[in-house]
């Protein structure tokens, strides 16, 4: 039986088509996935992301623990509220999960992990914590709403609790501010400006409604997926998993190599792979003609199969199909993708495809 978030009734009353996702019953769309996508690129949309799990790390060893746990280095976080995106690796260098961690105090960090991986993540977090003095607290009492789009901040700010409004208005990108039991981060998964807002479950339905009243469109997981794909953001389980390293998933930039003596989990495997010129590449693809690139379609260079699409779809902002693919090292400027037995040519491009409402690649 799939779980329901505290906004379930609101989704139903707003006409959502609900589908199972990561153990939860979540909105796929509220009528038109494409319209919701455009709404976020052009104005403001909101997503129920309460299925994701907030985990607080409390205790004197929170920092040394995270420096061991994560491939990115929380030492980079100097100011309270600053966020960091990182992979959490296993000993083989595979990705257990990708997450955002916020630094609040030396003895308080907060992370947000994926819904479908939550139980596995908590087991892993606890296992890695054996030699550290800290508490790992999943915050199941918190809901999370992402408000995204060029007008998202302007529309959401006046609706926030008065005592945190000023500090939230001053937030720089990738920073967060706590207050009044809420926690507001200027982060997102769409390539647009906006907030991710954690708040007590009891207050979430009311806040969702006032956002709707202010003209923020409810958007489902369908639009969330096409928005993140256009924005060049990876999806755990599709673009990377426990059997593939961040270096073969386009996430090399999230690995903090310095200082060399920091021994994070998976480091030895990644150190070796870093020098391997034969490792697979993670590339963006743009389909020249008609059709839609889909997950798992095979990629060819001439007659040779060189890899497969990890996530693909139609990009409503571009009116074309785009994808991420994991391919052999020697890929050129174009490749072929097999769609229903026919080969079509795709251009190899560098993600992101879209940022702040505009195409970043030439069509």
């Amino acid at each position, binding site marked *: 039986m799939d779980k329901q978030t505290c906004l379930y009734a609101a989704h139903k009353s707003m006409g959502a088509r609900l589908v199972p996702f990561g153990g939860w019953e979540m909105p796929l769309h509220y009528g038109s996935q*494409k319209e919701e996508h455009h709404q976020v690129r052009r104005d403001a949309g909101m997503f129920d992301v309460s299925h994701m799990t907030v985990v607080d790390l409390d205790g004197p060893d929170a920092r040394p623990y995270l420096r061991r746990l994560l491939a990115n280095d929380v030492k980079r976080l100097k100011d309270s509220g600053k966020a960091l995106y990182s992979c959490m690796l296993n000993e083989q260098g595979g990705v257990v999960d990708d997450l955002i961690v916020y630094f609040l105090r030396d003895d308080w960090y907060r992370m947000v992990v994926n819904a479908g991986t939550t139980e596995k993540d908590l087991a892993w977090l606890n296992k890695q914590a054996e030699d550290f003095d800290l508490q790992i607290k999943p915050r199941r009492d918190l809901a999370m709403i992402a408000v995204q789009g060029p007008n998202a901040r302007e529309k959401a700010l006046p609706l926030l609790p008065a005592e945190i409004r000023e500090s939230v208005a001053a937030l720089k990108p990738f920073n967060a501010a706590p207050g009044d039991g809420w926690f507001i981060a200027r982060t997102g998964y769409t390539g647009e400006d906006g907030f991710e807002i954690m708040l007590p479950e009891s207050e979430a339905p009311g806040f969702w409604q006032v956002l709707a009243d202010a003209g923020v469109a409810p958007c489902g997981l*369908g639009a969330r997926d096409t928005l993140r794909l256009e924005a060049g953001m990876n999806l755990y389980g599709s673009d990377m998993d426990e059997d593939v390293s961040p270096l073969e998933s386009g996430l090399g930039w999230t690995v903090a190599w310095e200082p060399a003596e920091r021994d994070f989990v998976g480091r030895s495997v990644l150190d070796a792979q870093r020098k391997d010129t034969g490792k697979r590449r993670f590339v963006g693809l743009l389909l020249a003609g008609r*059709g839609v690139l889909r997950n798992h379609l095979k990629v060819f260079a001439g007659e040779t199969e060189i890899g497969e699409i990890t996530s693909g779809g139609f990009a409503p902002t571009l009116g074309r199909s785009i994808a991420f693919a994991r391919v052999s090292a020697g890929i050129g400027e174009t490749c072929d993708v097999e769609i229903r037995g026919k080969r079509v040519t795709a251009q190899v491009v560098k993600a992101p495809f879209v940022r702040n409402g505009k195409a970043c690649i030439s069509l």
Partner: protein
Amino acid sequence: MSNTPSELRYAKSHEWVKNEGDGTVTIGITDHAQELLGDLVFVDMPEVGDNVEAGSECAVVESVKAASDIYSPVSGEIIAVNEALDDAPETINDDAFGEGWIFKVKLSDAADLEGLLDAAGYDATVAEET
């Protein structure tokens, strides 16, 4: 409540067939089918002049979510395709039973029509699936 037009005939694979009364039929996908697919983004149409067999794949509709084969419910020759769908595939979402038609077939055997479902039969099929 059903909005399945009673004047059309249907295939279990969610195509509708309109008998034009001159030995030709117009074919599209049902409103139920477009709703399941979500926003359509491309339609791969057959070639005019192609011969199709009843039950064979002859077109593909691609939505934001998935690609789906369209089967011809009848045998015959493709005599027209809805070229307006090239630029506006969303017409199928907006008007599945009308402007969103996909292709027309000149029947090779009018008896093909007799094996198709009426509106009530199609609605029953949909009810079984859901």
